[in-house]
């Protein structure tokens, strides 16, 4: 039977092309039946037990997510936990049982509904998203109370496109990408937690498809275009062939990258650069080797300080650094010293409450204020330095004075270790993050005092443009292609080179295909990217002729808008044979 092709559109929530038969999840609301209760204590006990089970489940889910997806996504379930433990919510349920004589299920449902309604009414997208989280959590408790298993998709045979009204983050985290080839939901958007998880799992997704209700039936053939945010229901033969071809090309592109494994990273005219990785937890070092990274350009040491009651001692830190250094077998490992504050609160440090945490006591400022804490870390790094090729990097430096003070503490650590007869490498390179505009402006002065710079574009853009990167209202300003940012990056690289030191980059821009031609032209020495981007970045760099990129630069530096700069890079990529035929992801 042939059916007419229909196209629906929504938000492009997770990239890629999915192809398969529809499995429509009937999100039937849980059936909650009011019943008379004889024993209020029994109902209270049931709720208590269900909440306890739910907390356990969330903790398990958090652990699995942390191992299979990542730290950041795992935090979502930590946030869900506080909702379960919220005194108002639990009190509301208890009250409905004790005073109104409701059964546990009805009490839970009514209490949740009241809070969800209240949060949803506030017309604040953040609070509305929290209302969804609250629903997710309470549904978990209700399912436990009703003895209903959570949706079990494990028996599905792939490839399947999951179609649903909405999918909770916890549902998405449990999906198997080998079976689920794509997902489509009527609710949600590219910023919802479910979308974040779909992206990390590599499941193509279109969300917020307003006209989805009733449009799809089980076993309909579906194509999900997660790049454009479109889905095709019972696609015509032509459409199907187009997409099969597109998908084949993508797969072939990924496959073709494999020849770059084990190769040097060099430009088309054979100028070598370094391609290393950013990691948070020490365990991620494995990933670096797996993805063929040439070392670690940013080890975010603050992860060692998270999720604990007090600061890690020297010996514990020493072991962690030594392990990472050994696993890298002599390849460089840049350890960034503690970057606390801003949005990274570490409770036991008792950082002051501030109006503007990003402009306050943060990173090196905290460390210079707590020299003991700082020195403990520096001693640990120095001692570990005999196990490999360690480099030390200070975050958030904004003046020469700050840098001198940090180096003084480092010198004290060296002298203490020397006096104690402890082994360390006295030649460990010392560098700084370039993420504050004031530092970038005086890069020539700072360069005299360090062995390297690493440009942190995420913060550099935020501080240069006076733009909170989490604030959607000013999203247009938050771009590495803003002329001011491009000029600053260039200025830092040139100042570094003039002083004879090397310059790297560890922000997202270092793996951004639309930035790489500019960075090659500027002569960036080191690209530090997330492990999954290594091969693609190596491929792109190999396509770019440094001499041509260098010639492009003076024109770009005169352009007056981010859009013009983007356009000129797009043009450059096209002229150099990177026109999207090989990889439609970005051009």
């Amino acid at each position, binding site marked *: 039977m042939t059916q007419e092709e229909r196209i629906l559109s929504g938000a492009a929530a997770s990239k890629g092309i999915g192809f398969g038969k529809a499995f429509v999840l009937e999100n039937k609301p849980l059936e909650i039946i009011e019943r008379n209760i004889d024993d209020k204590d029994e109902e209270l006990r049931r709720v208590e037990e269900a909440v306890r089970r739910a907390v356990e489940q969330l903790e398990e889910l958090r652990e699995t997510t942390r191992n299979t997806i990542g730290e950041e996504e795992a935090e979502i379930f930590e946030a869900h936990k506080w909702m379960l433990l919220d005194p108002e919510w639990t*009190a509301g349920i208890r009250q409905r049982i004790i005073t109104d004589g409701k059964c546990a299920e009805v009490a839970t449902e009514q209490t949740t509904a009241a809070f969800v309604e209240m*949060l949803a009414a506030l017309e604040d997208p953040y609070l509305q998203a929290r209302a969804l989280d609250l629903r997710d959590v309470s549904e978990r408790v209700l399912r436990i109370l009703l003895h209903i298993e959570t949706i079990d998709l494990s028996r599905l045979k792939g490839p399947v496109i999951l179609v649903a009204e909405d999918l909770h983050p916890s549902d998405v985290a449990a999906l198997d990408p080998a079976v689920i080839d794509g997902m489509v939901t009527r609710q949600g958007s590219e910023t919802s937690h479910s979308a974040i998880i779909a992206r990390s799992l590599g499941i193509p997704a279109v969300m917020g498809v307003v006209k989805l209700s009733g449009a799809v039936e089980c076993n309909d053939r579906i194509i999900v275009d997660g790049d454009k945010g479109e889905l095709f229901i019972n696609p015509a033969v032509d459409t199907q062939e187009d997409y099969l071809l597109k998908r084949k090309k993508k797969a072939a592109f990924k496959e073709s990258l494999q020849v770059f494994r084990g190769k040097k990273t060099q430009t088309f005219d054979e100028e070598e650069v370094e391609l290393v990785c950013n990691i948070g937890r020490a365990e991620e070092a494995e990933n670096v080797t797996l993805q063929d990274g040439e070392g670690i350009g940013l080890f975010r040491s603050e992860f060692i300080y998270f999720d604990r009651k007090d600061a890690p001692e020297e010996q514990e830190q020493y072991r962690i650094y030594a392990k990472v250094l050994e696993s890298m077998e002599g390849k460089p490992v840049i350890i960034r010293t503690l970057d606390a504050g801003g949005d990274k609160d570490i*409770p036991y440090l008792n950082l002051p409450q501030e109006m503007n945490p990003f402009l306050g006591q943060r990173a090196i400022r905290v460390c210079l204020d707590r020299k003991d804490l700082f020195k403990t870390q520096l001693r640990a790094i120095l001692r570990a330095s005999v196990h490999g090729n360690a480099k030390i990097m200070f975050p958030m430096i904004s003046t020469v004075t700050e840098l001198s003070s940090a180096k003084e503490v480092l010198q004290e650590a060296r002298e203490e270790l020397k006096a104690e007869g402890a082994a360390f490498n006295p030649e460990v390179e010392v560098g700084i993050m370039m993420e504050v505009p004031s530092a970038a402006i005086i890069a020539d002065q700072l360069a005299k005092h360090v062995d390297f710079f690493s440009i942190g574009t995420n913060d550099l853009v935020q501080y240069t443009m006076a733009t909170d990167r989490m604030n959607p209202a000013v999203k247009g300003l938050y771009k590495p292609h803003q002329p001011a940012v491009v000029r600053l990056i260039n200025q830092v690289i040139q100042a570094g080179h003039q002083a004879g030191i090397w310059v790297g980059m560890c922000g997202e821009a270092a793996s951004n295909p639309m930035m790489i031609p500019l960075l090659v032209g500027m002569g960036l020495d080191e690209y530090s990217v997330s492990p999954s981007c290594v091969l693609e970045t190596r491929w792109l760099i190999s396509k770019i002729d440094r001499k041509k990129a260098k010639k492009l630069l003076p024109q770009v530096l005169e352009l007056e808008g981010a859009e013009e700069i983007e356009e000129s890079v797009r043009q450059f990529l096209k002229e150099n044979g990177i026109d999207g035929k090989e990889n439609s992801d970005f051009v």
Partner: protein
Amino acid sequence: MEKKIVILSESGLHARPASLFVKEAGNMASDVILVKDGKEYNGKSMVSILGLGAAKGTELTLRVPGISTEESFAKLCAILESAS
């Protein structure tokens, strides 16, 4: 202890200060109550504080009826006053 406070921050009592406040309040033995327009809200509950919807210019009363130290009371005030 009791104190009247006006929320000065542009974005009101938003998620970040609210979560700081709940954390701090959770450490106190006494109840922590926020009063807005005569209605009481539980200061130890994130859901409750978010639902209070304190925009810029909102007048709140912070009430800690039980035993508490000057220091922890001052801390709570400081979070509300600097809410950003």
